[in-house]
């Protein structure tokens, strides 16, 4: 019950202040830090970032094309526990999870045929019961190789 109260209090505070301040931080975080993770891949220009609380999930649907080589970067702000992500095809089959790579933040991939993939992002938990759950920006960015 104590843990629930803490989660609720943090969620309440975060959700009240998030629209005015944290989203602006997300923009800076995505542009200055997460984009660097794309390395030599050209960022496609999309912006997907949100404030998540530890334990919270987000989903993203995107069609990827067979002729391109992609890099996906999923980054959590400092102070958040590691961000876990998994990628599924339209049938729900898991194609990749960053648990395989020690919760790494980037994944490089290409497809034989174009298809829509679902990316499920989850902020893990520190598992500490005595502290308020952490919250912070999570950005999802995509890049592709140009020739």
């Amino acid at each position, binding site marked *: 019950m104590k843990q629930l109260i803490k989660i609720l209090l943090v969620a309440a505070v975060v959700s009240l202040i998030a629209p005015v301040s944290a989203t602006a931080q997300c923009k800076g975080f*995505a*542009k200055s830090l997460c984009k660097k993770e794309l390395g030599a891949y050209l960022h496609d*220009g999309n912006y997907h970032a949100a404030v998540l609380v530890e334990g919270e999930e987000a989903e993203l649907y995107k069609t990827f094309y067979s002729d391109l080589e992609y890099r996906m970067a999923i980054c959590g702000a400092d102070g958040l526990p590691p961000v876990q992500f998994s990628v599924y095809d339209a049938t729900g089959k898991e194609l990749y999870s960053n648990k395989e790579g020690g919760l790494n933040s980037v994944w490089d991939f290409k497809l034989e045929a174009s*298809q829509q993939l679902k990316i499920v992002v989850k902020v893990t938990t520190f598992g500490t019961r005595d502290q308020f759950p952490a919250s912070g920006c999570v950005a999802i960015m995509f890049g592709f190789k140009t020739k």
Partner: protein
Amino acid sequence: MNSKLRILPLILGVSILSIGLAATSCKGKKKSEATKEKQEVVSADEQTMEQIKTAEKVFNALPTPLEVAQLIKEAGAKFDASLLNPVDNKSNYTTSKSMALNLGVYVCDLSFASMYDETSLLVNYMEAAEDMATGLGILDAIDENTIERLEQNINNRDVIMEIVSETFLNSQAYLEDDEQHAVAATIITGGFIEGLYISTNMVDMKNFRGNKLVGTIADQKMSVDDLIRLLETYTDNSAIQELIGQIRELKTEYDKVPRSSAPSSSSYNQKTNMTEITGAARSEIKQDTFLAIKAKVAEIRNNYVK
């Protein structure tokens, strides 16, 4: 009564209210609406956890103008400047809706010009995009520094594409942070339709069968579904309401494109350090369906590119 228990209803109330407020203001669509009936019979803890669950975020990502331009170039299509929206038209766009749609259009045209090294067009199209962004109040997306940087690097393709990518990112990020999600979705729609317009008009009908570009256009079937899901998030916006009707008509045409299904699988290639995903469905398109899609795309575009 224990003091912790006394404040619990207050905490629960504030939390539910604030989570509800945040869920309606965030970009992501609320995941589930089907909890109302349950709420009367579940405990307060379960009810509150259910509220947290509904605050989960769902994003729909469309192919961006740069991605579409790259796909078209990969398909071997030749650049045709006559397909772009002339920059002289920019003074015709005075409403928020037309400026948002044509910001997407001009960024898409800019993406094509940069991808195909059409350097003589870049500054004019960036200025047209700047005018649209300024009209929408997006102050930091494109400014004089952007134009200057573009001019200084006019022959450096990598820097040019980086600038175009930043332009799109800045516009989207500004609008999302300013809670103008519907305007951001309108820009995305303008860019997406422009990409489809250019690509459908680049197809050489004499070489329809086996044409790689035709395959890429057929694959946009999935992105049309993504676009509709994105727009359905903002149906309270009148501009989006008009657009969504047109995009649904396009979907009707795309629904005639069959997709064969095959299970996909993934494996890691150590040589390329890359996961390769094989299998999955393929889209195939007949010539009459293609022509119907091409006509519908032109019809949609002609509503705001004039």
